[in-house]
């Protein structure tokens, strides 16, 4: 009896220990767990860069023992790979790095509030390209121009960063961030379903629409899945298609704008024929999308394709990256990637987004933050990050043959990278409001609450008046 009781006690204690271990792992706040892939120097693209990287790593050894670096960012699919890199940085420098990752909307709110409070809680700020205007306006993220000038050119290889990401990190002539995880959209299609339907991969938007309906009709499977959910998802979707439909969202927001002055005339163009055609296309495609199409957002768009319930999508590359894994995707080995389709005669304009790292103006650990940014965004670590499930921010990483073999879609990305327009989503402080308000209007149209004319005219007047009161030129 006593022995039974003892055994029970031991089992209870062991269970408690396992539970505690589990809980402490869950509540570690995202601190990097690390990998033994360091020093990553083998990924350096040139001998000079390799030498510079090794020398930089040598200087960092144990330099920040006992110090803590706080990062605020989001939990996108590269999160696990970022934690691996962070773990290596911790081992190298002795610093403890805490990564606080949020969802997209919550991450934005958190960072705006930290800036408002002039908080020193975060040292490194990760931000999406369209947020830059907001952070520049509040002065939350400090300019990096002086640091970039003084940095070791062989280590930094600044021109190796994608041109569009370098441009996207600039606000009114100042550089506020360093890119590390850029996103591009591409058209991904299920080769098996297209074959069954006898449809060729679409190159134009009208071919895309016809293919969508044909696939649904001939196979019973949805032809596509678009981000139709009200608010930010469908608001962003508009920006992802408008340029390739031959239109533009605001009078001066176009890659052809002389002098790159994209925000000189912010008169909304949501009622233009191209805008209306784009929004109407969203509605016309609902018939060949999966059930529940009005609630599709980024995740459900991906899952519809990955589970074989939609034949074509235009996702960000972070979704494409995991399609090849048979443990995550039912279409592994049955899909192909190509550039996004465009309207006939319209030059490809690949949507771009993704993450940059900046330094909090109010941080008390700016040197540590800058060393981390230089290390993390270096060609060698960026390549290791990509290899581990992250993203290429540099030409040298994208052109790496080992990585191209592992991620064949990287070759398509290499083709479209330089067709991207950094301001395809406005980078003004009001960007988030614009996308949400536009998304509400498009959502109301898709749900049958408004006509197309009502929705586009309300979007023009609401967003126009918001921008006018913020001081923009709106006619």
């Amino acid at each position, binding site marked *: 009896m006593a022995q039974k009781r003892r055994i029970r006690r031991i089992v209870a204690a062991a269970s408690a220990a396992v539970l505690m271990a589990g809980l402490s792992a869950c509540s570690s706040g995202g601190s990097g767990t690390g990998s033994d892939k360091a020093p990553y120097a083998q990924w350096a693209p040139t001998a000079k860069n390799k030498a510079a990287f090794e020398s930089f790593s040598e200087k960092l050894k144990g330099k920040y023992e006992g110090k803590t670096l706080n990062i605020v960012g989001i939990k996108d699919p590269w999160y696990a790979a970022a934690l691996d890199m962070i773990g290596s940085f911790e081992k190298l420098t002795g610093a403890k790095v805490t990564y606080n990752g949020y969802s997209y*909307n919550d991450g934005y*709110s958190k960072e*705006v*509030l930290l*800036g*408002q409070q002039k908080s020193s809680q975060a040292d490194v700020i990760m931000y999406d390209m369209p947020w830059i205007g*907001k952070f520049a*306006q*509040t*002065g939350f993220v400090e300019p990096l121009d002086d640091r970039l000038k003084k940095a070791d050119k062989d280590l930094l290889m600044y021109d190796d960063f994608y041109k569009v990401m370098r441009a996207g990190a600039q606000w009114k002539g100042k550089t506020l961030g360093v890119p590390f995880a850029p996103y591009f959209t591409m058209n991904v299609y299920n080769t098996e379903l297209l074959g069954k339907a006898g449809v060729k991969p679409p190159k134009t938007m009208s071919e895309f629409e016809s293919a969508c309906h044909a696939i649904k009709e001939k196979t019973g499977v949805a032809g596509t899945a678009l981000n*139709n*959910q*009200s*608010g930010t*998802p469908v608001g962003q979707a508009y920006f992802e298609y408008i340029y390739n439909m031959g239109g533009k969202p605001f009078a001066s927001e176009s890659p052809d704008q002389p002098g790159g002055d994209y925000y000189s005339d912010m008169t909304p163009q949501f009622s233009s024929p191209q805008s209306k055609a784009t929004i109407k296309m969203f509605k016309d495609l609902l018939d060949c999308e*999966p*059930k*529940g*199409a*009005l*609630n599709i*957002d980024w995740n459900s768009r991906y*899952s*519809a394709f990955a*589970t074989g*319930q939609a034949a074509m999508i235009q996702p960000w590359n972070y979704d494409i990256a995991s399609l090849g894994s048979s443990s995550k995707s039912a279409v592994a080995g049955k899909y192909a990637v190509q550039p996004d389709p465009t309207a006939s005669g319209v030059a490809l304009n690949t949507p771009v987004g993704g993450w940059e790292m900046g330094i909090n103006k109010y941080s008390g650990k700016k040197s540590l933050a800058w060393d981390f940014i230089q290390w993390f965004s270096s060609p060698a670590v960026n390549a290791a990050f990509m290899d581990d499930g992250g993203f290429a921010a540099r030409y040298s990483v994208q052109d790496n043959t080992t990585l191209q073999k592992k991620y064949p879609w990287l070759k398509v990305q290499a083709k479209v990278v330089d067709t991207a327009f950094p301001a395809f989503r406005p980078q003004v*402080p009001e960007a*988030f*409001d614009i996308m*949400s*308000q536009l998304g*509400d209007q498009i*959502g*109301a*149209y*898709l*749900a*049958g*609450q*408004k006509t197309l004319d009502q929705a586009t005219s309300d979007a023009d007047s609401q967003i126009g008046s918001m921008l006018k009161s*913020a001081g923009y030129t709106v006619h």
Partner: protein
Amino acid sequence: MTTLTTPDRIRAQRTPHRPDSTRAARRAFVAPLIVFLALMSAVPTIFSLVTSLTDYKVGADTPVHFVGLANYVRVVTSPEMLATYGRTFLVVVIALPFELIVGYLIAKVFHRVHELRGSSLIRTVYLLPVMLPEIVVGLLFGYIMNTRVGVLGFLLSAAGLPAPDWLGDPRIAIFSIMMIVVWQWTPLATVILYGGLLGIPGEVREAAALDGAGRIRSVFSLEVPMMRKVIGLIALLAGVQLIGTFATVLVTTQGGPGTTTTVLSYEIYRQAFVFFNTGYGSAIAIITLVIVILLSQLLVRFAFKED
């Protein structure tokens, strides 16, 4: 012999000449709580009230202007906002009676079997949804009601019934939200009503039965009047909770399709924390607060009035 009424008795029990030091000590003991309540409740409310009279936007590097009642005028003249108030009202008037009626019926079952072995375990398990965070329930139902992978659609299809697009059909999405909320909160109503049923003395039930009151008559002439305060309490709690429905909408529909599930708390969140229209969001919150206070007062007067 003089008969004292209750207030007289209380007055008589009071010490007529309580020393000032005792009074001061009492105040000193109560003071921290008063200060705490003021800090936690009154200060934010006053701050919101002041903010609602300005064009304050969190995160904007622009000067704040006093705009008077402009935000309030914008709220009451916006068709979208009026529709949002209407939608929230709809949630309350449909979900609240549902919670009360279903809660009452289940409470009756519990009451009938309350002496059976294992009944307390069933009551505890039944109460589990209340203990789950609203966000978890929302995520759970997001999957259950998912048209592609959801178990609800699967079961209906297996039974040969059409599976609606629970959260994606603009005509029924708001009712799906109500279903989720009712599922989560009905157990609370049940437990409170069950307590109320247990509080009705057996002699009273026996007397009613002797007087020839049937089951239906007993419900309306005995149980409902005797549990008026209990029902009032549930209506108050559930009403406030229904007006505050937020996380369910956030994780299942984000207010869509279109704006068909955009309810007040979600709109306040969007205005204050997505668009950072702090002044405007505060105005919506203050109007909502006034409505909640007025409705609560009406309910309190009706349910808690002395006979």
